[in-house]
């Protein structure tokens, strides 16, 4: 397993793509958070959650995380590298585990940088837009309990999205189709859910869609109105990632590369 891990790490380190994606993940997450923090204004009775607002960049960062997860695998299928990788590590579940562990590790680091940058931008910009203690809407300190949960949860969410991409790409193998399916699950399902007016169905869709459920972990106010409790929501995202990895593993185990 150590050998497999080392091999995956070397591949990631020496390819240009993943490096740029990791930088993009951190920069785009922090960057979009900063733009949102600069543009949003406090509204009385608007139900805004300053901590969740300061982490808005995760909406964009997740797309980069998904692409990272997908391309690490689909790139190997595209170039035929996968056959070499399997020749070197014939135990297929072990190969998948090594890839998952490497991708998870680097996404955690890039996600942490992005989330830290997001919080910093929120700290600098939100108070100027009316998010002050006087309005009862100040940004919570970085280490405060619920804020810490939102921040760590966001980093974990980005990691889970990368794993979702990795699992689906292992199952689908084609880059374009895999990216389409992951981004569809993340972005399009919530928009389609907004179409359903029936309260029960609407809530159910929000509870099972990986993005709406997973990002519940960012909430620090009005927790009672969430489709799921924060950690349960992240659990749904984890279930999606786990299911995708399982599906990918089965395809890897049962069919030739």
């Amino acid at each position, binding site marked *: 397993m150590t050998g497999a891990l080392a091999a995956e790490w070397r591949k990631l380190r020496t390819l240009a793509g993943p490096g740029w994606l990791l930088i993009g993940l951190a920069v785009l997450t922090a960057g979009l958070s900063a733009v949102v923090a600069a543009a949003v204004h406090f509204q009385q009775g608007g139900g805004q959650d300053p901590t969740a607002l300061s982490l808005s960049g995760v909406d964009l960062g997740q797309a980069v995380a998904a692409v990272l997860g997908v391309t690490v695998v689909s790139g190997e299928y595209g170039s035929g590298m996968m056959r070499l990788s399997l020749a070197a590590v014939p135990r297929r579940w072990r190969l998948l585990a090594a890839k998952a562990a490497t991708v998870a590790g680097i996404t955690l680091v890039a996600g942490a940088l992005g989330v830290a940058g997001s919080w910093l931008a929120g700290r600098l910009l939100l108070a100027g837009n009316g998010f002050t203690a006087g309005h009862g809407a100040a940004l919570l300190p970085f280490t405060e309990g619920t804020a810490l949960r939102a921040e760590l949860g966001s980093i974990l969410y980005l990691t889970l999205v990368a794993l979702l991409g990795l699992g689906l790409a292992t199952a689908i193998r*084609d*880059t*374009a189709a895999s990216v389409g399916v992951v981004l*569809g699950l993340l972005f399009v399902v919530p*928009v*389609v859910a907004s179409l359903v007016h029936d309260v029960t169905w609407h809530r159910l869709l929000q509870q099972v869609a990986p993005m709406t459920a997973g990002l519940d972990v960012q909430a620090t106010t009005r927790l009672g109105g969430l489709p799921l409790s924060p950690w349960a929501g992240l659990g749904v995202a984890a279930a999606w990632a786990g299911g995708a990895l399982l599906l990918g593993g089965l395809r890897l185990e049962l069919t030739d590369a």
Partner: protein
Amino acid sequence: MSADLRDFSRLVRSEWVKLRSVRGWRIGLVAVVVTTVLLAWAGAAGSHSGYCAGSSPSTTRCYTGHPPVPTGPDGEAVADEFFFVHRSLPGNGTITAEITSLSGVTAVNGVVAASPGGSPPTRPLLAPWTKAGVILTAGTRPGAPYAAVTATGAHGVRWQYDYVHDQAGLPGSVSRRTPRWLRITRRGEVVTGYDSTDGVAWHVIGSTRLPGLTSRADVGLFATSPLSFVLRQSGTTTLATARFDHVATTGTVSGAWRSTAVGSNTFYPAYSSGRARQTAQSAEGASFTVSGSGDIGPDPGGGPLGGNSQQQQVIPLLVGVLVLIVLAAGFVTSEYRRGLIRTTLAASPRRGRVLAAKAVVIGLASFVVSLAAALIALPLANHVLTANGNYVMPIGTGTEARILLGTAGLVAVMAVGVVGLGTLFRRSAAAVSLGVVLLVLPTILGTVLQGAAGAWLFRLTPAAGFAVQQAIPAYAQVSYPYDALNGFYPLAPWAGFAVLCLWSALALGLGALALERRDG
């Protein structure tokens, strides 16, 4: 046919053969139609509607279906709920009134109605489009043709008729020291509105013909007050109270003053059905205090006002867009991956033309499948929604055609843009993710960034193109959260579409430039 054109049509044909002969792409095109129709059906089948109405807990009854939504003279959904003190005006005549005060309150706890059991707590608030004045209607049926000269909370005196028409009269607010004199005259089917600051010097605001004005016409005083969105995003009901002096009628006016709560059973959320009291009667005219809640005007629908906007029925096509984005990206990048691009470029050394042919084939294929999907999904969803008791906002044939064709155009232009991105990056991951993020992320961020900042997203990003799907126009004379979440966009339908076209042209141009400059 010139040689150039023949060459290009040959290129288009060969690209079409490529698209047609790959099984995955064929399946993709069919999947666009199937998934859109299935999702539209499922969304509609999952929406059921019911409501409860009654004046006290013991008499409240619940119904399936939706409360009545009146339809205006032009077939549009309208709000028509106000308190009316009126006399019959079978022929020509005039009504004059001096409005000396206009005040209002709003329910604190959202969309609630007063009941005989008690009144929900209120606080003072005069909504900008609170209305009280003189009105002439073709009967008290909700949705009847009318014309009114009305004082408003914050928009001065207005001349309004048949729900969608609105013209400004005297500016300024109403008070005892700055009263407003209002007058309507009827001559056959022609109705004219006047205002004055002193009841001596009158000035015409506007005039119109109201076809269908018969002996059933009524003339009188009214008060109504619409939902306010100041305290809550979901709206709070309001109640207006107006004082009228020097109320006088001339001409064929007949019968005594009567009071009617017009449209009190309709859908529009009201604080109470209102009331009126005659406070004096002298040689100079009568005095009345009238209070009312509701609105007379076009209904923007959706959100706090209920009703399904028809543009929602084409939202499922987003899944189809995703399939087409994947397909468009793969159409270009797979040639790079397999080295086919060298053969393609050898067969046609004019590289820009190859890209143009690909764009034409993808654009046309996307347009045709999206139009087919929308043509099936929209009527199907409308039918299922109506059968489930939901209210579907009526729109004109022109608007419906614009939504169907515009939606198909939106998808086609998007797919063409992705062909450009695919050529530029030669990587499907970049083309697909950029395409999806640029189209969908603004919608998600728009719900976070409410207000002005969110509106800019729908002016500048490719998501501006969604404006072409807007079913109901934003009315200046109705306060409403006109944002993307409720289906309203800052740009005019085709202007928004043009923004998307510019983005796609940019992507295609950059792709063509890259193709010319580099080696394949």
